[in-house]
C-alpha cells in the first residue's frame, strides 16, 4: 500500500481513506491534520519544523480562500493527503487543493430562516473517517458527506432548532462512532453529547449533561430547573486511546446570570466529562465552577499532557478555564492535581484541596451590577490553547478584563433567550491580552508576551519552536521557549479562529481564518 502510494499519488489522492488507526497514530504522518486538534490529544501541536525560529520572519502568503458570506469565521480545517477541507459561513463545506487553494467541490445546505443562535452562523470544522466527512450544522443536524465529491450520504436531526438547539463544533471520529456536541446555552436547552454510527447515522448513545429526575446529580438543581439548565457541549473534545476515554467539556448552567432559580451545584454544567466512546457511559466528571453565575462555559478543548507534578510524572488532562483558574487533573481518575489563577480573578479566594473554588460572598451578579474579574469572555474562551511536548509548557491566549455583571429576570419560553441578566463593560482598568506560557503540572507562569487588547483566537505550537497566535486582526509567531516576537502579519480582518499547519509536496503551510478569508502562509 505504501509503495502504491508512491507510484500512483494522483489516483490515490482521489481514494480518500482515513481509518481510525490513522487518526490514532497521527504522529506517523505529521504533514496531515486529520482531526480538529490534529491528533486526539488536543495539544494542537504540529511536529513540522520546516518553518522554524530561524526563518519564520520570511513567512508569506501562499494563497487566500475568500468565502461568500460574511459571518464570524471560526473554521479549523482538516488536511488529508493534499486536500484541505473546511467549513464556511453560513452552512458550506468545501474541499480545496492544499497547494493551490483551488476548489475541488463545494456543499451548501440552506438553513431555516428562524434559527435561534446566540452568536452567528459559526462553525469550527469537520471530522473525517474512512472516506466520509462529518459536519454538525447550525440547525442541529449531523451530516455525512462523501469526502471525494461532497455528495451527502446521510443527514440526521440531533435536536429541534426551534427550541433553541444548534450545533457549531467539529465532530470527533473515534473508532466506528462520530461523537458530537450541541449548542444553545442561551435558550434553556438541555445539553447532551451524542455518539452516532459512522456508517448509518443511527444514534448509538446520548449522554445528557443534566441528569433526569431519579438520576444521580439531579438533586443539584432546584425544582424543575434541570429541564432548562443548558450545560451545552459546543466545542470538540479529545480522546485517550490508552484508556479508551473521551473527554468533553460542558457549558454554563442556564439561565446564565441568575442563579436564584436553579439553586445547587447544577451538575454537570461547567464540567469535564470522561466518557466511554463505545457506550456513552460516564467514567468520571470534574466540575470547575459549581453553580456558575457568570457564563463561564467550560467547553474549550482540554489537553492531554504528560509531565511532572509535585515531583511525580503524571498523565494529566489540563486546561485554563474561562473562570480564571488553570487546572491539572489526573486523567485516569479525574482527581485534582494542581491549579491556580492564570489571570486576575476576584470571585474566589482560591481552590481547595479537591479543586473546588472557594467563593467570595457577594462576588456575583446583582441587579445594580457587580464588578467581577474575569469578564464573561473569561480568562480564555472556546479557542485553542496548546501544549508543546518539548518545552513542557501549556500556552494560553488570555484576556485581562473585568466586567459589571447584572442579574435580571429569567422567564423560560421555548426557543427564546433565557439569560437572566448580562454584563456591561468596565473600563476602569484598561483591558489587555497576553500569550502566557504555564508550567503544565502547576500552571505557574513561565513567560508572557503582552498584547494591546484581549484576543479571541487560538494558539498552535510547532516542532519549529514556534507558537502561532492572533490578536485582533494580526497573526503572529512567538519563540516557544522565550516568548519573543518573531513574525507578525496584518490580515485586515478580525481573527476568531485556531491556526493549523500541514505539509504537502515538501512544503510546510500555516493556515488561519481571518475576516472572510482563509489565509495560507508558506516560505519560498
Amino acid at each position: 500500500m505504501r509503495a502504491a502510494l508512491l507510484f500512483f499519488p494522483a489516483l490515490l489522492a482521489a481514494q480518500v481513506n482515513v481509518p481510525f488507526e490513522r487518526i490514532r497514530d497521527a504522529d506517523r504522518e505529521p504533514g496531515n491534520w486529520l482531526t480538529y486538534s490534529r491528533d486526539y490529544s488536543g495539544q494542537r501541536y504540529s511536529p513540522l519544523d520546516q518553518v522554524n525560529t530561524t526563518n519564520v520572519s520570511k513567512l508569506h502568503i501562499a494563497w487566500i480562500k475568500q468565502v461568500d458570506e460574511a459571518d464570524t469565521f471560526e473554521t479549523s480545517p482538516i488536511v488529508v493527503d493534499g486536500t484541505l477541507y473546511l467549513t464556511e459561513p453560513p452552512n458550506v463545506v468545501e474541499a480545496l487543493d492544499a497547494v493551490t487553494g483551488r476548489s475541488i467541490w463545494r456543499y451548501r445546505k440552506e438553513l431555516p430562516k428562524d434559527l435561534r443562535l446566540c452568536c452567528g452562523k459559526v462553525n469550527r470544522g469537520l471530522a473525517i473517517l474512512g472516506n466520509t466527512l462529518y459536519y454538525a450544522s447550525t440547525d442541529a443536524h449531523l451530516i455525512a458527506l462523501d469526502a471525494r465529491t461532497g455528495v451527502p450520504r446521510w443527514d440526521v436531526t440531533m435536536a429541534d432548532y426551534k427550541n433553541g438547539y444548534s450545533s457549531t463544533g467539529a465532530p470527533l471520529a473515534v473508532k466506528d462512532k462520530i461523537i458530537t456536541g450541541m449548542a444553545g446555552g442561551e435558550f434553556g436547552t438541555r445539553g447532551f453529547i451524542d455518539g452516532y454510527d459512522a456508517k448509518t447515522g443511527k444514534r448509538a448513545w446520548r449522554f445528557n449533561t443534566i441528569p433526569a429526575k431519579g438520576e444521580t446529580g439531579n438533586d443539584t438543581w432546584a425544582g424543575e430547573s434541570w429541564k432548562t439548565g443548558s450545560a451545552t457541549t459546543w466545542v470538540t473534545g479529545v480522546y485517550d486511546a490508552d484508556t479508551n476515554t473521551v473527554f468533553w467539556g460542558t457549558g454554563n448552567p442556564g439561565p446564565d446570570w441568575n442563579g436564584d432559580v436553579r439553586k445547587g451545584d447544577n451538575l454537570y454544567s461547567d464540567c469535564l466529562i470522561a466518557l466511554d466512546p463505545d457506550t456513552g457511559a460516564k467514567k468520571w466528571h470534574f466540575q470547575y465552577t459549581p453553580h456558575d453565575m457568570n457564563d463561564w462555559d467550560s467547553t474549550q478543548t482540554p489537553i492531554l499532557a504528560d509531565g511532572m507534578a509535585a515531583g511525580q510524572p503524571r498523565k494529566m488532562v489540563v486546561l485554563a478555564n474561562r473562570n480564571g483558574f488553570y487546572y491539572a487533573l489526573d486523567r485516569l481518575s479525574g482527581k485534582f492535581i494542581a491549579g491556580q489563577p492564570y489571570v486576575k480573578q476576584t470571585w474566589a479566594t482560591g481552590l481547595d484541596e479537591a479543586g473546588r473554588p472557594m467563593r467570595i460572598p457577594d462576588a456575583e451578579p446583582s441587579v445594580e451590577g457587580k464588578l467581577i474579574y474575569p469578564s464573561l469572555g473569561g480568562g480564555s474562551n472556546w479557542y485553542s490553547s496548546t501544549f508543546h511536548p518539548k518545552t513542557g509548557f501549556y500556552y494560553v491566549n488570555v484576556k485581562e478584563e473585568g466586567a459589571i455583571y447584572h442579574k435580571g429576570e429569567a422567564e423560560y419560553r421555548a426557543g427564546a433567550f433565557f439569560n437572566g441578566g448580562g454584563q456591561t463593560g468596565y473600563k476602569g482598568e484598561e483591558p489587555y491580552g497576553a500569550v502566557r506560557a504555564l508550567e503544565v503540572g502547576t500552571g505557574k507562569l513561565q513567560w508572557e508576551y503582552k498584547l494591546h487588547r484581549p484576543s479571541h483566537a487560538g494558539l498552535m505550537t510547532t516542532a519549529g519552536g514556534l507558537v502561532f497566535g492572533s490578536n485582533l486582526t494580526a497573526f503572529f509567531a512567538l519563540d516557544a521557549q522565550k516568548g519573543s516576537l518573531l513574525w507578525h502579519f496584518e490580515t485586515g480582518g478580525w481573527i476568531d479562529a485556531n491556526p493549523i499547519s500541514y505539509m504537502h509536496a515538501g512544503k510546510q503551510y500555516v493556515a488561519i481564518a481571518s475576516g472572510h478569508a482563509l489565509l495560507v502562509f508558506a516560505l519560498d
Partner: protein
Amino acid sequence: MKLALPLFISCVAFAAGTEPKVKLPTSRADLLNGEKLFSVHCVRCHGPKGVGGRGPLLTRARLTHAPDDAALINVLEDGIRGTEMPGAGAMSDREIRQVAAYVRSLGKVPVQSVPGDAAHGAEIYRGKGNCAGCHSIHGEGGIEGPDLSAVGEARSAAFLRESIVNPGAAVPDDYLLVTVVPKEGSRVSGVRVNEDSFSIQVRDSSGRTHSFWKRDLAQVEKQPGKSAMPSYQGQLSDSELTDLVAYLATLKEAK
C-alpha cells in the same frame, strides 16, 4: 455563552424580530421596573429621568432613532451603529419593553428649552472662541477636535457646558493624547487614531498622520483624561458660555 456583548446583541434582535407586533406594557408595575432598569443601565449616559448627558436627552416626544415603538425596541436591543449607544445585552425581552415604556413616558413631560441667545453663541463660536480652528460643522472648520455637526443631538446642554469649561472630563476614546518617542528621530505628539500590539498611528495638530512600528519606539506616553482643547473657564463670561451652548444645542444632522 460564547462571545462578549456585540454578537450577543445582534442575536437578541433576531429573537425579537420573530415577534409579530410591538405593544409596550402600560401597568404601573411595568413602568416602575422600567424606571429601575433605566437607572441601572441608561442613566450613566442619558442622565436621571433622561435629561441627557454624554447621551442625548430623552424627554422628547420624538426620538431621532426611534420614531415608533418597534424602532425603540430595536434601538434598545441592538444599539445604534456608529454611535456610542450599545444594545441591552443584559435585559430580557420583557425588561426591554418595560424600559421602552418608561422612555416613552419621559417624552410626555414638557421639555425645557435650552436658555441663551443661539445667534450670539454662533458669533462666539466663529469669533472670540475660535472654535472653528479645531472643530468642523458640516465640512467647515478644523479637524483637530471632534466634528460638531450633530452635537446638539448627541449631547445635553449641561454636558456641552462642562466640556467647554473642563475639556478633560470626558475625552472621546479616539482623541486620547499621546506622545510617541522613537528610538531614532523626533518625538510626535497628537491624538491616537489607531493602535494594536505592533503599531500605532498618531495625528498631529497639523492634521498629518504618523505611523510607527512599536519595535522602533523607545516610549509611548499616554495622557488619559487630558484634552488638547483649552478650558474656556474665565475666557468666556457666564452669559457667553450660555449663548455658545445654546448655539451648539441647535446643531443637528443635515436632513
